């Protein structure tokens, strides 16, 4: 891999109170790759993402040690944490339409960042909604409530919102659990398109989704990084670790 390193995680440990959720994880994420993150429940996938954009700060008893560097800067040293969060788009597993109009949902982040020009905002909203494969369905009712959309549409709205602050890194946390397969495929196409401009971290419970999309795949197991390799290797007959083989083939109880 010759691409520059965007995210550098070294010996990341995260504890909620006395329970350690991540036991020293180290890996790099390269520019313009899609890194799949797979692992069963309680593996620490979501915690890992929350360390990247420091929303872990909002959990009172969480303690984080080790280092997470985004573009060479340790996230805990970052002064403008809001800028950091804008640099990293985050899509949560369950759709959250903010109680605002569809337009305002997407325009929320740019406005928070200080963008006021109407024409720019409108162009941005349209582009993000198109990228999230939602534009055609909502273009005639941009000023109705985002919360009135169906679950799948809200999830795409969430994706549009995550794209609206023009992130350089996009984290998707099981984005497809609320969306039908057809829409999922459309968004997967979008992701392939997006990787030319952004770096994508894709947490997924559907191992096949990681197989389809990811350049490299990372297997987390109970807070420990078991294996990180090219996706072909992870899904081959002979990954380095036996646990990886068992997990991706559904043999772990």
């Amino acid at each position: 891999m010759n691409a520059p390193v965007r995210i550098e995680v070294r010996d990341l440990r995260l504890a909620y109170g006395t329970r350690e959720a991540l036991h020293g994880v180290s890996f790099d994420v390269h520019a313009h790759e899609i890194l799949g993150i797979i692992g069963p429940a309680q593996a620490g996938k979501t915690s890992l993402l929350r360390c990247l954009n420091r929303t872990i700060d909002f959990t009172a008893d969480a303690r984080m040690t080790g280092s997470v560097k985004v573009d060479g800067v340790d996230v805990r040293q970052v002064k403008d944490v809001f800028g950091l969060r804008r640099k990293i788009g985050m899509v949560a597993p369950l759709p959250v339409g903010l109680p605002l109009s569809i337009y305002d949902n997407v325009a929320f982040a740019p406005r928070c960042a200080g963008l006021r020009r109407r024409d720019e905002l409108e162009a941005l909203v349209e582009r993000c909604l198109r990228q999230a494969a939602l534009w055609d369905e909502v273009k005639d009712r941009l000023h109705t409530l985002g919360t009135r959309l169906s679950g799948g549409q809200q999830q795409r709205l969430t994706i549009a919102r995550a794209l609206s602050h023009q992130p350089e890194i996009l984290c998707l946390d099981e984005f497809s659990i609320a969306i039908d397969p057809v829409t999922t495929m459309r968004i997967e196409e979008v992701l392939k398109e997006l990787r030319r401009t952004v770096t994508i971290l894709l947490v997924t419970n559907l191992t096949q989704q990681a197989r389809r999309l990811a350049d490299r795949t990372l297997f987390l197991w109970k807070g420990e990084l078991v294996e990180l390799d090219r996706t072909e290797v992870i899904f081959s007959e002979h990954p380095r670790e036996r646990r990886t083989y068992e997990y991706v083939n559904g043999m772990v109880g």
Partner: protein
Amino acid sequence: MTDVPFQEPTGEGSGRDAGGLGAPSGSDAGAERRFVRTAFVRRKERFEAWARGVFLAMAAAMIVPLVAIVGHLTYEAWPSLGLEFVLDIPRQGMTEGGIWPAFVGTLYLVGLSLAVAAPIGVLAAVYLNEYARDNWFNRVIQLAVINLAGVPSIVHALFGLGAFVYAARFGYSILSASLTLAIMTLPVIIASTREALAAVPRSFREACWNVGATRWQTIRSIVLPNSISGILTGVILQVSRAAGETAPIMFTGAVFYKAIARGDLFAYRLDEQCMALSMHLYTVTTQVPNVRESVPYATAVVLLASVLLVNATAIGLRLWLRNRKRW
């Protein structure tokens, strides 16, 4: 008997297989058997009806005191009631006439105390709910709020007397009395506001933080617009409490009688003492001899009607705001 509720139809069904639930026996007889009323089902239904009846009776019993109070007061007050009673000043040594000075005094006291308590209370609640971390300092604040809410009003009165009348040199005045009422209502406003804020789902806040919104941006654009109805309701409900309290204002700024012009809305200055409805009710009932019998009742009706009017406004406001709520 309770172990196998579905498989034991009383009387009939003996000899058939007992796999009622989920067993696709294919015949209509099997389907029919699933809805047979067993002894257990009948007992369950009996308890259900009984429980419902008891709860309903208790809830309905609440209507009785309200109707009794309002009915009795209105009946007794009838000879004096009318717009004239509200607008006129007390006459003949407070045995006749109206209650205008007391009415205006209560307006002043309640208005001023809420003008102080509402902003402080709401902002404090926003801090406690949105910003405060779980450390000793904030736990002390929480404890203070809870305990302040439990302090009896007569103790507030004494505190107001010492703090505002003497220490702050506001004297016996509307200002002292209002501040005392404000301190009394503050903790309740804080509690109700926090409840309204906590009702906004955390996922909304997290979604905002994820896109780089600051706490304040989140509060301004998402949290407050969606909790404003609850906040306002909580504040307005404190009007009735402030209007009804006698002890705090008696110690700090309410007087038996004060001469002002009939119907004059701007009769008092803030450093003056004033009359108040609750105080006036106490006075004409216990302190003044030979009062016309309907006067205390009419005073009570005016107090009650004002409070109910304010509460009704609160309910209307809440309905209106809730219709605009967005999730």
